[in-house]
């Protein structure tokens, strides 16, 4: 056996006692020191078992390889009733499964709004009573139905959904249409203007976009996202470039396909910098879903919050959720709102971080560091720290400011437990009280317990 270290100049990685590293420095041996810390408390036993799993190395390569090779295409816009088989009284919601009893203000508000929108109740009070009684009502997690929804993420049968197909692996994922900012259903608002907007989206926006997409053909979201990253978006809290690119792609087709409504449709999309968010989420969802179900893999395939719990799913652990309490984001508040008005973290939009976007791509979007009152260097630090807990660098999603390095992609539960570094999540902040709407935006940390619980399950498996 030829042992390569015996030939050539020794170059050493040191991890542990500094005195041994200093001894190498005195010998002028080139070295890199690891800034090692103990793993998350209580994780070391499970870590040893998970790391020793002979399936792990190749399982992770397979899982993350699938996620990174996904080619999400926006193929259509269709009513949830049709594509998801939703029936009256059935609602999907963001995050891990939750009951009305445990639901937070904005989740309840969004469900009330959806009841009103579907004509299942005449007043908010009636909607609340019916939801509380549970009669004829079914709630389930979006993620159980190839779907994601921002913030409360409530999906009801009459809503129109973006349909994204993975041209590489054949999966499909769905996300609702973005309503804009301020008082909107996804932030728990359910006033008349909210319901009216949803109606217009179902009657005008959805059909117009569907017709336009039929005309111009599927839209390559992988390419669009890659371009938007190079234009200053991170695809979670900043979607300005991606939305502009989307409009550029579909505007002629909208004019041709729906000449009577083209102006209002394009004006609506242009007036909402976050319109692309939902398409990006569906693209991230279809990519992450491609990585599901690889036995032995410690890759995170979903991170999602329902306003009460923060949950994750892991490739090698099927559809089980591992949860911890959702934290309150740290950020900037709109108008007179402050931290006391904030609801705990909510929404499926953390699917963007799961796929290597959002907080993980923050270095691509220095403009958003305003949300946390930070410096551009904070954005770079956030992204570079995520390379410590991810398995790979995205081959298509690149960050110009980091020398076109691929975004850190594919969270490894084991690396989170080893480093104690939690995923950096960019997010909007919903008001605590049902009906309030958005109160701010900022950064939030997932609960470490969700990751150690998943690690324990991997160790037992």
């Amino acid at each position: 056996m030829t042992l390569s270290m015996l030939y050539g100049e020794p170059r050493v990685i040191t991890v542990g006692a500094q005195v041994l590293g200093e001894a190498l420095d005195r010998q002028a041996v080139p070295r890199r020191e690891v800034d090692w810390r103990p793993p998350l408390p209580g994780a070391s036993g499970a870590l040893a078992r998970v790391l020793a799993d002979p399936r792990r190395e190749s399982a992770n390569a397979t899982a993350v390889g699938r996620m990174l090779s996904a080619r999400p295409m926006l193929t259509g816009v269709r009513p949830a009733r049709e594509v998801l088989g939703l029936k009256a009284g059935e609602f999907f919601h963001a995050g891990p499964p939750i009951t009305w009893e445990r639901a937070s203000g904005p989740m309840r508000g969004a469900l009330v709004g959806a009841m009103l929108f579907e004509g299942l109740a005449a007043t908010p009070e009636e909607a609340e009573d019916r939801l509380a009684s549970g009669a004829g009502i079914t709630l389930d997690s979006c993620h159980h139905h190839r779907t994601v929804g921002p913030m409360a993420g409530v999906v009801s049968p009459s809503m129109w959904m973006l349909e994204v197909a993975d041209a590489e692996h054949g999966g499909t994922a769905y996300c609702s249409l973005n309503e804009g900012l301020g008082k909107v259903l996804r932030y728990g608002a359910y006033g008349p203007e909210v319901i009216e907007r949803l109606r217009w989206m179902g009657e005008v926006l959805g059909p117009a976009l569907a017709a336009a997409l039929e005309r111009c053909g599927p839209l390559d979201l992988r390419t669009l996202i890659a371009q938007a990253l190079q234009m200053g978006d991170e695809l979670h809290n900043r979607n300005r470039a991606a939305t502009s690119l989307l409009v550029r792609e579909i505007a002629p087709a909208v004019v041709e396909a729906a000449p009577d409504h083209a102006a209002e449709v394009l004006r609506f999309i242009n007036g909402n910098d976050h319109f692309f968010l939902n398409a990006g989420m569906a693209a991230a969802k279809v990519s992450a879903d491609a990585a599901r179900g690889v036995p032995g893999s410690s890759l995170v395939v979903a991170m999602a919050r329902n306003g009460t719990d923060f949950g994750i799913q892991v490739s090698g652990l099927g559809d089980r959720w591992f949860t911890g309490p959702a934290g309150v984001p740290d950020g900037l508040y709109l108008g007179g709102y402050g931290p006391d008005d904030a609801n705990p973290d909510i929404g499926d939009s953390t699917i963007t971080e799961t796929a290597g976007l959002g907080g993980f791509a923050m270095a691509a979007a220095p403009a958003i560091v305003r949300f946390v009152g930070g410096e551009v260097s904070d954005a770079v630090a956030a992204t570079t720290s995520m390379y410590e807990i991810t398995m790979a660098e995205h081959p298509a999603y690149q960050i110009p400011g980091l020398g076109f390095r691929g975004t850190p992609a594919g969270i490894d539960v084991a690396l989170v437990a080893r480093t104690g570094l939690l995923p950096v999540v960019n997010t909007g902040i919903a008001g605590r009280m049902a009906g309030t709407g958005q109160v701010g935006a900022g950064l939030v940390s997932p609960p470490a317990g969700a990751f150690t619980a998943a690690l324990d399950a991997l160790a037992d498996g």
Partner: protein
Amino acid sequence: MNDPVNDLVEVRPGVYRDSVTLMRVSRALTDRPGVAVAVVAMATELNLGLARDLGFAVPPATPGDLLVAVRAASPAELEDAAAELERQLAARAPASGTRGEAPPRTTRSAARAFEASLALVSVPGEHAFAEALDAVEAGLSVMIFSDNMPVEQEILLKDRARAKGVLVMGPDCGTAVVGGAGLGFANVLRPGPVGVVAASGTGAQQVTSLLDLAGVGVSHVLGVGGRDLSAEVGGRSAVQALRALDEDPATELIVLVSKPPAPEVARAVRDLDLATPVVAALLGPGQDDLTTAAEKVLRALGRDVPEWPSWPAPASRPNTAGALRGLYAGGTLCAEAALLAGAGDFTDFGDDSYTRGRAHPMIDPALRLEALRGVASGVVLMDVVLGHGADPDPSSWLAPAICDAVDRGVHVVVAVVGTDGDPQGLRAQAARLNEAGAAVFTSNAAAARHARLLAGG
């Protein structure tokens, strides 16, 4: 009672430094005038209890937090100590990489950014597996200085390493020299024709230091970990290392240093059919001692065997025969001395049971000093191991303690394992210990025989 005004107690969440570094910081603070006691340590149950026992009001903390507890004679001195603490911690902060980016947090991440030839792992044993596996998966050989690693993890690592064509040196591997770089506790050895495969760190240091004194250098010293030649581990790394040195054109002769291997492992090693001659230095009853093994190597290379340097004790003291106490830092040296002395009470302070939660005695002399001070009569036999990684000036604390012991009528015999190239300087250290009243030897076997004689054996 303690005046709480002059106590500084704080917990710094998420701040980590290794135990040796923190021991040095604590010592630097304790050495300051006006500082009564200073505990700067990770907030493990053990350390929290220690601080509480010292009367500090310790807040709740987790083992991932840094505990600081300092008591000074006056508020001004406490303030000075606090400032010194910041200086010490800042000076020992992890180095950042080029371009100022954050340093890597795992060996895996370091291997991505830095083209390395091997990794040196010395984190606490229960966490060493992850770092070592990172290295192996990145295609790097790895030296695991850490001890207390479960044997099944060792076997798994060695099997993965063999599949990847890399070598696992350790766990509990104290020394290695690879391509001229001394790793762990490593003497400064001249380059030469002898390759060493060692399941015993201080054993290898003794053999190679004697060879160096005889003018013969090494190609590489590959540690394999103390358990490697056991029946359980089956010589997994030793076989790989022997084959690798056999292929190395710079290696003309191989020395295998180990406790006697399990019989089936000895057979496997014998059956390797190497082109390079192998001299075995297998410590145990009926085997050559390490010095004899080094002499065999010299003869095999056609070199003269010199007289090993030694410095007899000044003969002015009255002789009081008595029991023999062996106070050792090196495990193999301790076993060799106990074997040759025939009788006596030997303690290996480098044993796992003494190093859990504290630094190795080659770095932290406290326990051995305490033991030496406790000897009232008879003969004390000790080792002092020089080289990189070891105490920068062991005679500075040992010489005064030897002086006191000799004044009590105790005979002190010291085996100094080191070379002229070692940063501490072999002859300077030996001279100072000798002046303090000790008989000093470069051969541990010679030291043990001398001690036996003094003890009347």
